[in-house]
């Protein structure tokens, strides 16, 4: 219970019901002409932000929805949209 998340379908739940899906990096890049460095950036590199980030979560033990949450990595708390700088 270090983390609680708000599922758009099920509401506030224990974070262990969810699976983390990475920071939101935007749509998949085109495969054609993707260089190894560009591929690596999409597949592996992280900014490791200490602050608020947009990220994907899946409510795996509940409704199964993938959704985007805003979370502060320094506190593990969700941040409402209006609070994001």
């Amino acid at each position: 219970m270090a983390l609680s998340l708000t599922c758009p379908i099920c509401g506030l739940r224990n974070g262990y019901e969810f699976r983390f899906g990475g920071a939101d990096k935007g749509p998949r890049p085109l495969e054609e002409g993707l260089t190894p460095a560009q591929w690596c950036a999409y597949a592996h590199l992280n900014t490791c932000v200490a602050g608020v980030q947009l990220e994907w979560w899946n409510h795996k033990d509940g409704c199964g929805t993938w959704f985007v949450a805003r979370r502060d990595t320094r506190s593990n708390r969700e941040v409402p949209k209006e609070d994001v700088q």
Partner: protein
Amino acid sequence: METAPIERSSPVSFAMAPEQLVLRGDWPVVLRYPHEGAGPWLVDLSHGGKWDFQSAALDRLAPRGVVLPERPGACACAQGILCSRLNPTQAVAWHIAGPVPSPPDTCDVTDVTDAVALLGLVGPKLLPTLEKLTALDFVKPARAAPFILQGPVAHVPSRVVCFATPTAAASALIISCARGYARDMVDALLEAGKEFGLRPAGELAWTAWIDTIDYKKEAA
């Protein structure tokens, strides 16, 4: 070739011989067990038909005999079929009482009768029992009954439908989980409910309760 009768079997079996049993279609259905006690009861409802509806235009889907609730989390009951809205594009329907219906007729339906175990809980002290297995909150935020919650029960991803006010002295719940977990789920429920007198019961214990609510109304 010798032909033994072909019977379907439920994933749930209780460690006792039934007192009263009927064959419904290919399903042997236990109506009563000996020493059922005064409740609460655990009833196997796995033999009921179950259907999964998915469509981008779910609200325009009008499966025969099924009322699709609008909001995710809401349930509706008609002609013995309980339909629960899971999300904007998905609903599940379970036949929980009354005559066996014919399957809904739409290509967006999948028969999931055998995919899950369906366990009915009837009687008092259901919330104290579930409280030992799940952190799901059946009371807040307040919802109109019946409603469905999706989340872990005894660590197993489950769906729980709550009939009537969950705090009422006697109420009913249905828990569904993947069929493979049926045995461990039954064991976990019986152990949790032991202190409140939870015992296995036949289908009659379920129908006696469900008859007290309006589950038969016609689909609009």
